[in-house]
């Protein structure tokens, strides 16, 4: 009987410890992201994975998770610099933004950026090719989280 209880308790203990450490890791990672002048596609994948599933793991696992929900972009590596257009396209896919007829027809990063600007998610000045900094990435995801009804 005691051995049975131990078998039940051990996995519970293991999962609660791993959940605790992951939470802490998420905040540590966000603090590190605050100091990055250039965010990468890998950072965007990680933060969208946190937003959609509440946790993140490796780039490959997070990417396949985002692919299933249609948020991931094709043809970018983990270390690729993140542009406003890339972030806007991921955001528009996640929030299922209509935005403009042009975005609905072409679905390009350029029109995704315009759509995000019209929804007040990003500033409209600048270009879709501008590089996104770490704090800017966090700022946009903060708004996304609020729109999605972040608790």
């Amino acid at each position, binding site marked *: 009987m005691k051995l049975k209880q131990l078998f039940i308790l051990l996995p519970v203990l293991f999962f609660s410890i791993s959940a605790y450490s992951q*939470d802490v890791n998420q905040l540590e990672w966000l603090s590190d992201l*605050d100091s990055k002048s250039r965010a990468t596609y890998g950072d965007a994948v990680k933060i969208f994975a946190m937003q959609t599933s509440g946790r993140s793991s490796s780039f490959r696992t997070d990417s396949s998770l985002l692919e299933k929900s249609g948020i991931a972009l094709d043809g970018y590596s983990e270390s690729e610099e993140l542009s406003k257009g890339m972030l806007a396209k991921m955001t528009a896919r996640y929030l299922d933004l209509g935005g403009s007829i042009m975005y609905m027809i072409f679905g390009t990063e350029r029109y995704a950026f315009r759509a995000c600007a019209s929804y007040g998610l990003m500033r409209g000045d600048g270009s879709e090719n501008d590089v996104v900094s770490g704090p800017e990435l966090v700022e946009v995801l903060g708004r996304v*989280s609020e729109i999605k009804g972040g608790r």
Partner: protein
Amino acid sequence: MKPLAMTILSAFLVCYTVPAFAEITVLKATGTAAYRDGKKWVPLKTGMKLPEGVKVSTGANSSAELRVNSINHTVTIKPLTMIQVFSKETKSTTDTHIGLKRGNITAKVPRDARVKTVFKVSTPIATSSVRGTEEDISYGPGSGMMIYDVRSLVEAKNRLGRSNFISGRLKYVQQLNLPKSLNIANDARGRSLVAVYGNGVTGDEVEAMLYSGGDQTGGPESDAGILDNQMQQDASINLKINWP
């Protein structure tokens, strides 16, 4: 005997005149919400007491609510936000200062006529002073500092000391590297189907604006700092009444 009396008197004065640190309590925490303890993050739990100057951070899809003093001033911390809280209080005063490093908070500051309240939220580019009951504040490098959904009155002051009073549907937006905030009526104008003019504009002034195409009366974005100084003083006026 004298030194003992002096010690008791000093202790009494220190206890009752110098503001003591207020009790910062966690009312609610969901998802990933933690406070900084030395070099590590410690998860928040309901009912937990936090030290003065505490740094609190929330993750994606997470939030927390803190009570920052005994008269129920609360701060709701939205997802992906980082703040630092300083709060002091005595029987007749409360002094709360929140540093918003990034993200979005809602501050609820119920009025208590018996307590003199100072409640400030600072970002790297501006500071808001709550004079009413509730406000939403956000800060990020893209959009700068925004104050909106204000119940009652909030004063917003940028780093150059230029101030605005926000109430109702007015929205304060101070972007990085700009000397003054955007027009505080922009948002209301953008949402309205008809033209929106500033408060107290007469019919003649509206006509002049329609003719010239611009606001000749001074925009609502103008610095209201000078008014603030006058609001604190008594004024006397002479009235001459002519009965018909």
